[in-house]
C-alpha cells in the first residue's frame, strides 16, 4: 500500500510539482585540465570512476606504437560534452575532439590490476589507494578538445578561487597557472611591453604581437616558469615513443605570446573598426608588404601572403629592428638611477617661519642622480658606476668587468635617448651621474623616473616620494563646530550644519601669509620642517582663491560623515585631508571610527535568556547606529549568536511606544530556525511567517502584518511579493545571510533596496570585507549613496584594488565601510573568554514540499495499518515508520533509495551545505554524525560535488587500516577533508578528532548519552578551539515534537529515553498520531 503512495509521489515528481530542477542523478565528477598540445592549449578532463568505465571502452584503440592504453579516467567526448552542459557559461561548445597521449605518473608493477596502475589527479576522481608505491611516467590515451585563445580567456575569467564552480565540476590545479599566465600577459599589455613581430612556422607566416620582458618582468617570467605544472606539457601525439622533454622557457614564451597576441588583436580588431572607419580595404588590397603586415596585426588569423622568400626577408628585417631591445633584455645586468636629495645642512632656529627658511635654500642645493649597476640574480648587489671607471685603461678587454662595462656603455647610450641629462653626462669623463637643480629634480620624480621605469631601467627614489607625489601636501580641511550632545535637541543625520574650510600642511594650518609666500616661491618642492613637500603652483593659487572666498558651507551631518570617512576626494582642485568636528558631531564621528566606546545598554526587559558580554556590545552597537538611522552589518562568525543580538534589538523597539513590524528576510532553509529562536528568546514577540503557497496577500497581508513584531520571509519572495512588501512602513529590515544580495543587479537586491524602513540591518557570517566586489551592494542597501554610484565604486575602489594600481584604495575603502561592519571571530581574545568551551544549539530546518508530501504518505500508510495490528507487529510497524519519517526528514533520496539528485530537495542538506561553506571559508573543520550509512554516503557525494574537496566517510564497512588513515589525515593535514562524516555506530566512540570544532548531529538518536559521546570525538583533550554542536531538527515534524517532549520532561528524560527509541512503541495510538503529525505551517516551498 505504501508503494502506491510512492508511485503517486513519483508521478507528481515527473509533473514537476516539486521545485527541484534535475531529478536525474549526476553523480560523476568531472575535473578538467588545460594542457599544451602542438603549441596550442587544449581542454581535457578526468571523470570519476563510477560511470566512465563503460564509456571509454567504446573508444577504439587506434595506433598504439607507444603501447598507450586508454586512460581509465578519461572523460571522453561524452564527458567533455557533459562538462559544457553543466557549465555552459564558461566552457565553450565542444567541437572537434581527438585522441592524444598523456604521460602521467602511474603505479609501477600493477599492470594486472583493474586500472593498470593508472592514477587520477584527485581523490575525488579515484579514491587514493591505501599506499602509493613507487610511481613512474606511463603513456595514456586521453580525449582533448581544441581551445581557441578566445575560448581560453573566456573560460579563465570564469574560474574563480573555488575548486567547484558548479556542482559536479572540478577545476584542475593547473588552472591557477593558466590564470596567472593570462594575468601576466594582461599586465604586459596594460604596460605596453610588446612589439609587433612575425611568427614563421612551416613556411607559413603570421603577423604576431610579441612580449618584451624587461626589468622586473624578467623575474616574473622566471617565477612563472618555475611554477608551470608538468601536466601542462605532458601531452604528445599517439606515436611518440618516450615521455616528452620540454624547454619550459620556450613553453612559457609561447603561452604568454598566445595570450597577448589574442588580447591585443581582439582589442584592435579590424573587423570592429571597420564599421566606424573607412576600413574598406581588405587583405588583398595590402599588396604592399609593410601595410599588409600592419593590417595582419589586427585580423583574426594574422596570415601574411606572398612569396616565402620575400616574407623571410621581412622576418629578418623585423628581427634587426628590435635587436637593440633584445640585447638589453638578455643582459644579466640592469642600469639603475638613484636620486639623492641635497645633503641636509643643519638648519638652525626652528622658530622661524618654516616655509621661509626652507624656501630660500631649496633653490641652490644640488640634487644628484647616481648611476648604478644591478645584477639580476642578486638584486642587493648594487655597484656604483663610479667604481667601474676606476681603472686607468677605460676598456680593458681582459678584465672580468668588461661585460659589465660594455653593458653599462650600451645602456647609458640608450638612456641618453630618453634623457638629455644622461646624454650630457656622457660627454664628461667617467660619467657616474649628474647634478640637477630642484626644478629638474622634480621633473625627474614626476616624469623621467617613470619613463626610465617603463623602459626597464631601475629607479630608486627617496622614501618621501610616492606615486602620487610627496607624502605631505597642502590640503583642505573642513572644520565643523556643533554644540555638545546634551545642549542640542533632536538630532539626526539630516540636521544641517555650517563648516569652514582650512588649508593645512599635515597637522598645521597655513596662514594667509604663508600661503602667499609659498605662491611666490614657484619651486615645485620645498623643505618644511625637515620634510619635502610638493607644491603645485595651480594648487596654491586655488588655495588662495579659496581663502579669499572664505567659504562657509552648509551641508547635512550625513554628508559630513561621508566626507570624513571618504576623505581623499579633491575639493575645488585641492587635496582633501579630512574633517575636524567638535560637539555632538565630533562625538558621533569618534564613535563611528572606533575612537570612543559605545555606551553599553542592558538587554531589553522580557528578554528570556542571557546575552554574553560581547553580545551586549554587539547589541549596543546596532542600537547606536540604528538610533542615527545608519545601517549596520553584523558579520560575527557563525555560532556567535547573531540571531539573539538581533532579537534583542527588535524586542527593545517593540517594548517602546512605537510598535512597527520588522521584516526579516532569510533563506528558506532558516525560516523555522528564526521562528524557533524567537519563541525561545523573545516569547513576547508575535512572529508571522510569510512563506509558502498559502501566504497572505493584499489587505489580508497588511492586516496580519500590523499585528506582528517580526515578519519572516525569504529572498525569493522579496521580489515576487515586492508589491505587498513595499506597502508596509517597516520599522526595520533585517537581511539574514546577506551575501544573498552581494550582486547588486539581481532582482532580490533591487527589491531589498526599494523597501521603506526605519533601519536596515544585514547579518552574515562570511568575511564581507574580503569580497571587495560585493561590498557596494551591501553598503548600498545599508546606507544608500555612501560609496557613490556603482560605476564610481568600480573606478575608485574595485579596479585599483584588484589591479594593484593604488595601494591606498583598500585602506580608504576599509575606513569608509569599517564603521558599519562589526565582525568578530571566535578566536578573538575578547570573545574567547566570553564563550563556553562547548556550545550546543538546535538548528531548525524546514521540510521541502516534496519532503512534506512523502511524510504525509508515510503517515497515511501507518494510519491505515496501525489499528489492525498489535504486539510485536505493532512495535515493528512503529519503529519502521519512525525510521522512514527520519529518512524523509533527511532527504527524499534517502527514503526512496533511488540514487536521485541531491541539491534543493532537503531543508537539512541545504542548511548543512550553507553552514559547511562558512566553516570551510573560516578554515575550520567539522564532524557530521548520522545513524544511517546510506545518508552518510549521500552527504559525502553531495559535499564533494559542492565543494570540490575530498570528504571522508567512516562507517562500519570501512576496513580498519583505512579508518586510521582517515583519522590521521584529518588530524594532520590541513587541507584534508574539511568535513568528516561518521556513522554514529562506527564513529561515535573511541576516535580522536580534535581538528574538528563543529559537530553536527544530522539526525537524532534521542539519546543524549550517545550524542554526547559522539560530540566528545571533538570535545576532548587536545581541542584548542571552542566546540560548536548543532543538532538538526526538522521543524513541525516528529523530530521537533520528540525534542519538545524531552525538553519538557528534562529531568526524567534520561530515564525514559535512555534505552533508545523503544519507549515510543509504548505510546497510545492517539499519542502516536499526535507525535507523528506534521504541522503544515512549518513546511517550505
Amino acid at each position: 500500500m505504501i508503494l502506491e503512495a510512492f508511485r503517486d509521489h513519483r508521478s507528481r515528481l515527473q509533473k514537476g510539482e516539486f521545485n527541484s530542477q534535475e531529478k536525474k542523478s549526476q553523480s560523476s565528477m568531472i575535473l578538467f585540465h588545460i594542457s599544451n598540445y602542438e603549441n596550442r592549449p587544449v581542454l581535457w578532463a578526468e571523470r570519476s570512476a563510477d560511470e566512465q568505465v563503460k564509456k571509454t571502452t567504446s573508444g577504439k584503440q587506434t595506433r598504439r606504437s607507444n603501447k598507450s592504453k586508454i586512460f581509465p579516467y578519461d572523460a571522453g567526448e561524452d564527458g567533455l560534452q557533459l562538462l559544457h552542459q553543466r557549465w555552459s557559461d564558461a566552457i565553450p561548445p565542444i567541437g572537434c575532439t581527438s585522441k592524444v597521449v598523456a604521460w602521467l605518473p602511474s603505479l609501477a608493477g600493477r599492470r594486472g590490476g583493474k586500472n593498470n596502475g593508472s592514477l587520477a589527479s584527485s581523490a575525488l576522481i579515484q579514491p587514493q589507494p591505501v599506499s602509493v608505491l613507487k610511481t613512474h611516467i606511463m603513456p595514456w590515451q586521453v580525449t582533448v578538445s581544441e581551445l581557441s585563445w578566445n575560448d581560453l580567456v573566456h573560460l579563465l575569467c570564469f574560474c574563480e578561487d573555488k575548486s567547484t564552480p558548479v556542482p559536479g565540476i572540478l577545476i584542475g590545479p593547473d588552472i591557477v597557472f593558466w590564470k596567472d599566465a593570462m594575468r601576466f600577459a594582461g599586465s604586459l599589455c596594460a604596460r605596453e611591453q610588446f612589439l609587433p613581430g612575425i611568427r614563421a612556422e612551416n613556411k607559413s607566416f603570421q603577423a604576431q604581437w610579441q612580449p618584451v620582458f624587461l626589468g622586473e618582468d624578467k623575474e616574473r617570467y622566471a617565477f612563472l616558469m618555475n611554477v608551470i605544472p608538468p601536466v601542462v606539457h605532458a601531452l604528445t601525439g599517439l606515436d611518440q615513443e618516450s615521455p616528452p622533454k620540454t624547454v619550459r622557457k620556450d613553453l612559457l614564451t609561447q603561452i604568454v605570446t598566445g595570450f597577448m597576441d589574442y588580447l591585443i588583436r581582439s582589442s584592435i580588431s579590424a573587423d570592429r573598426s571597420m564599421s566606424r572607419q573607412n576600413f574598406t580595404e581588405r587583405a588583398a588590397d595590402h599588396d604592399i608588404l609593410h601595410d599588409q603586415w600592419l593590417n595582419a596585426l589586427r585580423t583574426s588569423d594574422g596570415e601574411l601572403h606572398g612569396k616565402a622568400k620575400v616574407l623571410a626577408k621581412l622576418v629578418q628585417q623585423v628581427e634587426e629592428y628590435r635587436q637593440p631591445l633584445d640585447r638589453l633584455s638578455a643582459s644579466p645586468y640592469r642600469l639603475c638611477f638613484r636620486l639623492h636629495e641635497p645633503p641636509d645642512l643643519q638648519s638652525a632656529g626652528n622658530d622661524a617661519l618654516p616655509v621661509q627658511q626652507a624656501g630660500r635654500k631649496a633653490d641652490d642645493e644640488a640634487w644628484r642622480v647616481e648611476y648604478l649597476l644591478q645584477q639580476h640574480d642578486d638584486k642587493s648587489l648594487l655597484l656604483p658606476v663610479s667604481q667601474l671607471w676606476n681603472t686607468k685603461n677605460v676598456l680593458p678587454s681582459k678584465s672580468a668587468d668588461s661585460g659589465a662595462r660594455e653593458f653599462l656603455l650600451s645602456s647609458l647610450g640608450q638612456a641618453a635617448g630618453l634623457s638629455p641629462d644622461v646624454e650630457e653626462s656622457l660627454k664628461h669623463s667617467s660619467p657616474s651621474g649628474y647634478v640637477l637643480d630642484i626644478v629638474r629634480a622634480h621633473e625627474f620624480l614626476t616624469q623621467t623616473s617613470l619613463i626610465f621605469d617603463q623602459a626597464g631601467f631601475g629607479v630608486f627614489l627617496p622614501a618621501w616620494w610616492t606615486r602620487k607625489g610627496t607624502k605631505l601636501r597642502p590640503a583642505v580641511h573642513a572644520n565643523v563646530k556643533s554644540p555638545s550632545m546634551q545642549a542640542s535637541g533632536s538630532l539626526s543625520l539630516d540636521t544641517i550644519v555650517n563648516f569652514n574650510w582650512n588649508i593645512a600642511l599635515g597637522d598645521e594650518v597655513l596662514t594667509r601669509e604663508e600661503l602667499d609666500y609659498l605662491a611666490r616661491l614657484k619651486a615645485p618642492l620645498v623643505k618644511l620642517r625637515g620634510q619635502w613637500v610638493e607644491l603645485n603652483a595651480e594648487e596654491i593659487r586655488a588655495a588662495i582663491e579659496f581663502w579669499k572666498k572664505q567659504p562657509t558651507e552648509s551641508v547635512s551631518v550625513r554628508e559630513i560623515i561621508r566626507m570624513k570617512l571618504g576623505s581623499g576626494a579633491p575639493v575645488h582642485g585641492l587635496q582633501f585631508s579630512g574633517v575636524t568636528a567638535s560637539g555632538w558631531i565630533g562625538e558621533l564621528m569618534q564613535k563611528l571610527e572606533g575612537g570612543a566606546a559605545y555606551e553599553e545598554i542592558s538587554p531589553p526587559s522580557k528578554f528570556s535568556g542571557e546575552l554574553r558580554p560581547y553580545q551586549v556590545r554587539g547589541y549596543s552597537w546596532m542600537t547606536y547606529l540604528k538610533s542615527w538611522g545608519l545601517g549596520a552589518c553584523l558579520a560575527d562568525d557563525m555560532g556567535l549568536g547573531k540571531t539573539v543580538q538581533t532579537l534583542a534589538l527588535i524586542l527593545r523597539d517593540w517594548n517602546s511606544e512605537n510598535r512597527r513590524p520588522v521584516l526579516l528576510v532569510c533563506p528558506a532553509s532558516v525560516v523555522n530556525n528564526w521562528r524557533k529562536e524567537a519563541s525561545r528568546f523573545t516569547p513576547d514577540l508575535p512572529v508571522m511567517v510569510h512563506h509558502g503557497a498559502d501566504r497572505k496577500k493584499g489587505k489580508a497581508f497588511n492586516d496580519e502584518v500590523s499585528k506582528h513584531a517580526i515578519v519572516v520571509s525569504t529572498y525569493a519572495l522579496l521580489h515576487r511579493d515586492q508589491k505587498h512588501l513595499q506597502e508596509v512602513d517597516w520599522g526595520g529590515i533585517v537581511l539574514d545571510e546577506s551575501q544573498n544580495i552581494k550582486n547588486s543587479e539581481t532582482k532580490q537586491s533591487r527589491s531589498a533596496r526599494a523597501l521603506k524602513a526605519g533601519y536596515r540591518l544585514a547579518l552574515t557570517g562570511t568575511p564581507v570585507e574580503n569580497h571587495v566586489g560585493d561590498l557596494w551592494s551591501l553598503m548600498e542597501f545599508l546606507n544608500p549613496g555612501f560609496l557613490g554610484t556603482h560605476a564610481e565604486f568600480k573606478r575608485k575602489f574595485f579596479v585599483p584594488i584588484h589591479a594593484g594600481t593604488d595601494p591606498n584604495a583598500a585602506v580608504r575603502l576599509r575606513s569608509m565601510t569599517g564603521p558599519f561592519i562589526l565582525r568578530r571571530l571566535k578566536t578573538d581574545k575578547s570573545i574567547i573568554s566570553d564563550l563556553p568551551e562547548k556550545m550546543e544549539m538546535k538548528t531548525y530546518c524546514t521540510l521541502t514540499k516534496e519532503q512534506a508530501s512523502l511524510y504525509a504518505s508515510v503517515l497515511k500508510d501507518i494510519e491505515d495499518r496501525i489499528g489492525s495490528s498489535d504486539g510485536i507487529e505493532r512495535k515493528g510497524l512503529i519503529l519502521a515508520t519512525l525510521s522512514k519519517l527520519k529518512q524523509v526528514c533527511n532527504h527524499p533520496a534517502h527514503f526512496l533509495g533511488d540514487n536521485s539528485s541531491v541539491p534543493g530537495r532537503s531543508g537539512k542538506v541545504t542548511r548543512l551545505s550553507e553552514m559547511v561553506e562558512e566553516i570551510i571559508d573560516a578554515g575550520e573543520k567539522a564532524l557530521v554524525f548520522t545513524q544511517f550509512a546510506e545518508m552518510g554516503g549521500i552527504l559525502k557525494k553531495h559535499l564533494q560535488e559542492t565543494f570540490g574537496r575530498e570528504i571522508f566517510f567512516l562507517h562500519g564497512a570501512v576496513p580498519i587500516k583505512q579508518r586510521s588513515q582517515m583519522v590521521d589525515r584529518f588530524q594532520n593535514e590541513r587541507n584534508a577533508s574539511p568535513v568528516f562524516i561518521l556513522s554514529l555506530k562506527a564513529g561515535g566512540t573511541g576516535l580522536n578528532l580534535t581538528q574538528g570544532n563543529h559537530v553536527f548531529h544530522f539526525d537524532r538518536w534521542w539519546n543524549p548519552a550517545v550524542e554526547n559521546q559522539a560530540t566528545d570525538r571533538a570535545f576532548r583533550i587536545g581541542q584548542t578551539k571552542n566546540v560548536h554542536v548543532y543538532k538538526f531538527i526538522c521543524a513541525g515534524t516528529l523530530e521537533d515534537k520528540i525534542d519538545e517532549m524531552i525538553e519538557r520532561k528534562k529531568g526524567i528524560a534520561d530515564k525514559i529515553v535512555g534505552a533508545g527509541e523503544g519507549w515510543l512503541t509504548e505510546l497510545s495510538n492517539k499519542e502516536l498520531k499526535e507525535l507523528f503529525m506534521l504541522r503544515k505551517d512549518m513546511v517550505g516551498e
Partner: protein
Amino acid sequence: MGYYDFGYFRPSVPRRVKGGIKAQSKNGSFGENWWAKRWIDTLESFNIGARLVRGRRYARSGQVLSIEIVKGCVTSEVQGSRMTPYHVEIHLRPFTSGAWKRFVDALIAQPYYMAILMNGRIPDEIEEVFKIAKLSMFPAKMNDLKTTCSCPDWSNPCKHIAAVYYLLGEEFDRNPFLIFTLRGIEQKALLSLVHKNAPARQDTENAGRKVKRKSHSVRTALPTDPDSFWGKSDARHDFLGEIAVPETHAALPKRLGNFPFWRGEKIFIDTLAAMYEEASEAGFDIVAGDFGGNEEKPDARIYQHKTG
C-alpha cells in the same frame, strides 16, 4: 619585388608605384639628426637645380623600389617614366684599415662616445674624432663619391640618384652606422676593433649567444611524483606588482625608431600608437578581473568580438 601599375602611359611622368620605399617625412628636411643633414648638404652642394626638387618628390611618393647597402656601395632600383626601373649606384671611397685603426685609437680615448655609438647613435662630436684621425666622415668632394644611373639624363647626380640619396639621409636617422658601412666597415667589425686584444667581436657575440641559448634550452622531463605533477592550487602571492598604465603610448617602438626602409602607406609609429592605446585598456581589464556576480565581465566584451 616591385609592384607596377600598368595604367596609362605618359612620358615625363613617372609611373605610379605601389610598395616603393617612402620617405616618412611629409615635408621639410629629410632626416632630423645633424649627420643626416650633413649628408644631404653634401648632395645639395652639387648644384643640380630642379633635379633636387624632383628627387625629393620621387623619394616621398615611393618611386624608389629597393635599396641595398653593402660595404662602400649602394645599389638601388628607381621607377622612372620608362617601363624598366633605372639602376642607381652610389659608391663611397672606403677608408683603409689603417685609417680605421687611427679612428678607433682616437675613439677609445673618449669612452663615452662609445656608449652612444654602441646604441646605434652617433655623438655630435664624432667628426672631431675623425678629424683627430685625419679623416673626413662625409664625402667632402666629388672625388669621394661616385654615382651612376641608367637613365638617359646627362646630369649626374640626376633626380633618381637624388631620390636615393634623400632616402639614405632619412635612413641615417635610424641607423647612422650606415655611414660607417658606406665607408667600408660594419658596426660589428668596428666594435671588435675597439676590443683590440679580444677576438673579433662578431665571433665572441655569436659564441656567447650559443652558450646562452644552450643554457636556456634545458629540456625538462616529467616528474614521476604525482604531488608535483598536477600543480598546486594554493593561492599565491600577487606577483604582478603595481600596474601603471602609461600616459604616452607605444614607448617601445618609439624608442626603436622608425622601421628600416618603411614602404607602407600608413605612418608606422602613428598607426602603432593608436593600437597600443587600445591594447593597453584591454590588458588592464584582464588584470583587474571581473566585477562582482553576474555583472558584465570584461572578458565578455572580448568574447563578443568574435562571436558577435
